[in-house]
């Protein structure tokens, strides 16, 4: 059996993996009350009726405010003026929610826009003559441009010639330069990034104004924002509620007239505004923008809000084994001494042979010997030896010392080496080699030549090491109802061992891009939504087919175009986080809608007795909050209705807490918190506001 290494032996693990799997809210940057103030000018500009028309719920509030204002002007009473004022505040607060969310996106867009300084490109004319300088805005798709060290890449494209280090910090925030070269999967370059060394020829891929950066700016600013299907459906439901309440309020006047009273229009409008779902109506677009924003905070760009919603629905995750589930390279996990050799002898030899070996495998052998076999205090270098590098012909590497030679390498290569040097290759070694292979690991035979005779010391086992915390994450995903499928080019044996270790639900071994595409189609055929990551050009069809396709920023332009999200950090594990963000977005939307509707009950108990007590005094029995007077009761409900919007802006931006537990548990929790909470909160809130409002002259 392989052993899981207790400590991460390589520093390759992304920082977030070493932390325990995150629970609770996915932070989206702190929310400062200052942001509210900063958004006031934009909110005021949104008072324009043309803007309000887009949101039927708020348009009704806007109309109501205009009407009540007119009535307050015609017949100024303290009550009418205050109601008019607070109705305008309701509209304003709703605008504020949207403005704050947009403001945060604008700040990010500003940073991006700075990369879009006008650059001069050196275009190679089609006749192959000398490069000519042209403005970046004049470049057409298919043009070839030369970019040399120190110059800014003028447009998105693929490297067709040369290799260069590129500073992409403007886009990714990552300061370490990356290598871009022609051919292969690292050929894509982004306009606005800077070449640090060497010279490349780039074939332009995007029209001016449609580059990657342009699209990013549009997205984070929210200017390209369209309602998602779910938002549309929810808006229909909210409009229906608005119509129902409109009917309930309109029908009230003739009924009251029959009952021997008349209701003031101001009061009827106040009732209507309190009943229609203003809270969620005001926060709906802010929730959507904030969801996108949370992705951007994590350096993920989604092409649309629809993609974020789909992420919440994903039921199958396709994850590449290498780099996502396991560390990129195999690592030494165990030593198997054999024959006359002891484990200490084997450890000492294997370590010596690997000290100068700079491959990840070599480093991992040194680390294993230090950590597990007590060789931590040995000198870190060999003074008089000569390192023999690995070559494809010999298939082994090693160290030549004055009195001995050490070799490690593939079993067959070592067999030849040992027998050719008069040694014996014991059958026990072959057995261990078979045993290690059967576990999906790679056996590395280690032998030494001393005094003219070769001797096999044992076997070093190299295994794929599952990144720490992956098992827990997959268990979490299972709890969320998401199936994980590991994709690998390894053979079935290796794949099944890793799948078992990592705790994924299924695996696809010896996978070709076609297999991947077929798997996605099969899953979708069964009604499941599929998410995957990819970077290569051959991933593009699968990325396009998947419901959520996250392209790595290091990947090719084809992959980025095909997917509907781009991860600027190129961290495939982020897919899990993306799913959480999608779910959190949907939960926030549902929870605040429920809260908003549940609020109505208390408002009825405040306003109905206040309206009707003049007609039927016994209806004062419904005034269970014991509000001071009809006027103060109605005003308190209106004030609460306005203030609750502001109070919920931080929650809308931050998103409600999400825990990866079963659906029923999640619903019970959210129903209690936002359903029952939504019923109780306004009773307390309106009662408290009334304690203040009753002292306003003429209301108490």
């Amino acid at each position: 059996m392989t052993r899981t290494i207790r400590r991460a032996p390589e520093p390759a693990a992304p920082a977030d993996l070493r932390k325990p799997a995150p629970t609770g809210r996915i932070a989206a940057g702190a929310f400062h009350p200052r942001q509210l103030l900063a958004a006031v000018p934009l909110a005021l500009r949104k008072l324009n009726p043309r803007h309000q028309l887009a949101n039927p719920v708020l348009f009704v509030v806007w109309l109501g405010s205009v009407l009540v204002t007119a009535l307050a002007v015609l017949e100024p009473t303290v009550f009418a003026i205050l109601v008019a004022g607070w109705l305008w505040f309701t509209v304003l607060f709703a605008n504020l929610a949207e403005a704050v969310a947009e403001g945060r996106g604008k700040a990010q867009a500003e940073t991006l826009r700075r990369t879009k300084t006008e650059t001069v490109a050196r275009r190679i004319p089609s006749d192959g003559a000398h490069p000519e300088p042209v403005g970046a805005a004049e470049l057409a798709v298919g043009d070839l441009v030369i970019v040399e060290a120190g110059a800014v890449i003028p447009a998105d494209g693929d490297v067709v010639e040369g290799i260069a280090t590129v500073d992409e910090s403007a886009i990714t925030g990552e300061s370490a330069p990356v290598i871009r070269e022609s051919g292969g999967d690292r050929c894509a370059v982004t306009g606005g990034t800077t070449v640090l060394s060497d010279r490349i020829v780039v074939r332009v891929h995007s029209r001016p104004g449609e580059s990657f950066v342009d699209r990013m700016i549009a997205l984070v600013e929210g200017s390209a924002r369209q309602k998602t299907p779910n938002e549309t459906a929810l808006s229909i439901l909210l409009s229906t509620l608005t119509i129902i309440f409109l009917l309930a309020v309109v029908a009230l006047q003739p009924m009251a007239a029959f009952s021997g009273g008349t209701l003031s229009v101001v009061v009827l409008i106040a009732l209507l505004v309190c009943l229609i779902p203003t809270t969620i109506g005001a926060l709906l677009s802010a929730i959507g923008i904030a969801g996108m924003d949370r992705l951007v905070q994590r350096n993920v760009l989604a092409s649309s809000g629809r993609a974020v919603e789909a992420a919440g629905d994903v039921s199958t995750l396709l994850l590449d084994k290498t780099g996502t589930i396991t560390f990129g390279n195999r690592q030494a996990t165990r030593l198997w001494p054999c024959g006359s050799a002891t484990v200490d002898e084997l450890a000492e030899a294997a370590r010596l042979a690997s000290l100068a070996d700079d491959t990840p495998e070599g480093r991992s052998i040194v680390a294993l010997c230090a950590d597990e076999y007590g060789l931590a205090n040995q000198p870190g270098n060999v003074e008089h030896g000569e390192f023999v590098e690995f070559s494809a012909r010999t298939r082994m590497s090693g160290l030549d010392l004055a009195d001995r030679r050490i070799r490690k390498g593939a079993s067959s290569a070592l067999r030849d080496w040992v027998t050719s040097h008069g040694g014996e290759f014991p059958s026990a070694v072959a057995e261990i080699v078979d045993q290690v292979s059967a576990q999906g690991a790679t056996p590395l035979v280690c032998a030494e030549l001393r005094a003219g005779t070769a001797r096999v010391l044992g076997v070093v086992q190299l295994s794929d090491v599952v990144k720490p915390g992956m098992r827990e994450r997959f268990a979490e995903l299972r709890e969320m109802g998401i199936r994980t499928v590991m994709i690998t080019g390894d053979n079935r044996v290796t794949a099944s061992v890793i799948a078992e270790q990592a705790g994924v639900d299924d695996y696809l071994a010896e996978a070709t891009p076609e297999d991947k595409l077929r798997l996605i189609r099969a899953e979708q055929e069964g009604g499941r939504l599929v998410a995957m990551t990819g970077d290569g050009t051959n991933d593009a069809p699968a990325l396009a087919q998947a419901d959520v396709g996250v392209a790595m920023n290091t990947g090719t332009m084809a992959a980025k175009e095909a997917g509907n999200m781009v991860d600027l950090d190129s961290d495939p594990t982020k897919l899990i986080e993306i799913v959480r963000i999608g779910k959190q977005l949907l939960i926030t939307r549902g929870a605040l809608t429920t809260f908003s509707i549940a609020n109505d009950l208390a408002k009825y108990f405040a306003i109905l007795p206040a309206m009707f007590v003049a007609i039927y005094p016994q209806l004062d029995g419904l005034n269970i909050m014991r509000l001071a007077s009809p006027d103060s009761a109605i005003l308190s409900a209106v004030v609460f209705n306005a203030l609750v919007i502001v109070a919920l802006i931080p929650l809308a931006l931050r998103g409600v807490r999400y825990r990866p537990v079963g659906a029923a548990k999640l619903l019970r929790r959210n129903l209690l918190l936002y359903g029952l909470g939504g019923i109780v909160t306004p009773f307390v809130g309106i009662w408290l506001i009334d304690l203040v409002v009753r002292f306003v002259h003429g209301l108490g």
Partner: protein
Amino acid sequence: MAGFAQVGVLVLALALIYRPFGGYLAKVYSSPKHTRLERGLYRLFRLDPDAEQRWTGYAVGVLGFSAVSIVFLYALQRLQAVLPLDFDRGAVPPAMAFNTAVSFVTNTNWQSYSGEQALGHTVQLAGLTVQNFASAAVGIAVAIVLLRGFTRASADRLGNFWVDLTRGVLRVLLPISAVFAVLLVSLGVVQSLAAGVDVTNVDGSTSSIALAPAASQEVIKELGTNGGGIFNANSAHPFENPNGWTNLIETFLLLAIPVSLTRTAGLLLGSKKHGYVLLSVMATLWAGLLAITWWAETHTGGAASALAGANMEGKEVRFGIPASALWAASTTGTSTGAVNAMHDSFSGLGGGGALLGMLLGEVAPGGVGSGLYGLLILAIIAMFLAGLMVGRTPEYLGKKLGKREVTCATFAVLAMPTVVLLGTGIAMLVPGTRDALTNNGPHGLAEVLYAYTSAGNNNGSAFAGLTVTSDWFQASLGMAMLLGRFIPIIAVLCLAGSLAAQRRVPETAGTLPVTGPLFASLLTGTVVLVAALTFLPALSLGPIAEALA
């Protein structure tokens, strides 16, 4: 005690038929075989019974059939004078004929006429009784189509309306009606083609007591949740409902199909547990209504009530409070509208309970078919919000609830409150309303609200106390019945079409389970909250003001 025993026997009887009858209904609507009689009928009407329809074709069938039915029923009433067995009751006036035709085709059975005075046996038998069967079969068919929408995937065909209609009548309603009619006759319900008998009273005066073929119409009146009595006094009339046993049987018939359809739903949806959950929601609401009415009628203040021990005004002494409350909860909960006591004489709270039974949207357990589809529509609304709260775009029974599904559901939900609130509001502005009422104040408002609620929900029960023979009431209540019936039906069929076109979403741990008490309470809460938020203002000027007085 006797009251509890009646409830106990009723519940036991329903429990006994639940599985076999629900299973039988499922078989009726999914069997590929046609009986010889059915094949003959299809040949006669040149129908291909195996050609399934799209939702649009199905809707055209429902609407076309109903339109023809209305015209036929209207003509029959207008021509009554030349029809046999009319006993010189003459042609029905146009407004009343329109109202009655609409009323029976929409399964409302609101009666603006007095049965034994206005209609002869031909119109009763060839017109009204036929519609009692047909409108009930239409209701069940629409509910079955919605179930098919959930169970079919990537399909555009939803069944054949004519086949579903024929099977509902021939395989379900007719056989049961025949058996129970004989039973009722043996228990004393009248079945006669005579106009009536003349009797000499004890004081020497003579009077004529009307007779009618009551037993045959009585069974389908309850079984099909229709409710239109052959006599004006409806099931309070001793010829329709002579004793405690007939009363219990008729109450049982009211509930039999709406209750058993949840079993049918469970079987067809492949989740019997979900059927039980739907049943539990209906049962909880029904029990709540029963408790309100029962308690209110035994706890009414006033000298008369104190003397009688309970509010006995408007109730038959042979039934008493429990059987009247049981009937009231069942008739308003099922959209039947037949009465065995006068709801107008109920206490403020008791009458409010009857009103609430309808305002819940007729889902406790609702009319034949309409109760089931009504509850499924409300489940869609509930699941839309609840689904979001578990972090997925909403789904229900393996189907996504997108824009089209929500639009259909909101149309179905919106129709009833619109009709009720606008109808009541406008009626309050119509000058004649105050004169048509026997009461003013909150009870008067309740009478008008009750009328539009009854019409809009296709219930048909009357609070009485309101004279509804003016052209305004005949026309507006007729429109309320039409809109309250057919807007939801079209929306439900459209919904079924869009559900069937979808693929099925497989169930995972992230799917909200719809089989446990959590979903049941969510759905119950939604039904109550939707009704409360919509109608609290109107109710507080009516029954609430009356109850608090």
